């Protein structure tokens, strides 16, 4: 299953809830303000780093760029994808859960 998170982890519990319920082997895509969850050295870095052992985490490149977040600021292991990658993830998974 593909999970998407579009809220900042500093403002909402969406990311935490998503990671606590996503099954091992799932894809988690961070979009919009959700990409702030990909920041290394933040209060939520440990949560996401731990999850990387269970799920694949992606962040949407255009949303990172819009917020001034370069790839070197991200937690290692998070894959940056474009809109085409978003479509591929949506097609590759049978279901999508949007944690709004």
């Amino acid at each position, binding site marked *: 299953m593909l999970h998407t998170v*579009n*809220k*900042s982890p*500093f*403002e909402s519990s969406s990311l935490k809830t998503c990671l606590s319920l996503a099954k091992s082997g799932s894809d988690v895509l961070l979009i*919009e*303000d959700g990409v*702030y969850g990909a*920041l*290394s*050295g*933040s*209060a939520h*870095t440990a949560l996401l780093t731990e999850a990387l052992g269970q799920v694949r985490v992606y962040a949407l*490149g*255009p*949303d990172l*760029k*819009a*917020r*001034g*977040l*370069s790839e070197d*600021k991200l937690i290692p292991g998070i894959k940056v994808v474009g809109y085409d990658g978003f479509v591929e993830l949506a097609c590759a998974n049978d279901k999508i859960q949007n944690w709004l």
Partner: protein
Amino acid sequence: MSEAKKFMYINRHAPCGTVYGVEGLEVVLISAAFEQDICMAFIGDGVFQLKQNQDTADTGMKNFSPAYRALGDYEVNRLYVEHESLEERGLTEDDLMPLTWEDEDDDWAEKPSIYIVDRAQLSDLIEEQDIILNF
């Protein structure tokens, strides 16, 4: 004319996901024309407003972050950024736009507008204000 009041605009939202940031910035720029004593505070996700190198071209959205550079020309030259909020987000002052203003009383010397303050200092600053507006 009555004495200038002390205004603080508090910004607590990230720049792109909601319109709080851009709307707040517009209100600050408009109110700056009324010659009041204006400062801004950036708390929580509000610190992301000042992140440098924002480039919204690929998202089809308008990038309003360069408008922060105009604040100095409107004598809005005290932007307080909470240190703890930066730290929680893995950011430092170097991640922020280098905003400046020109001091006409000091031969137009260019001076920084951003002040990194800790939570206790910010608490005192909030207490000093006459009017506080939130975005």
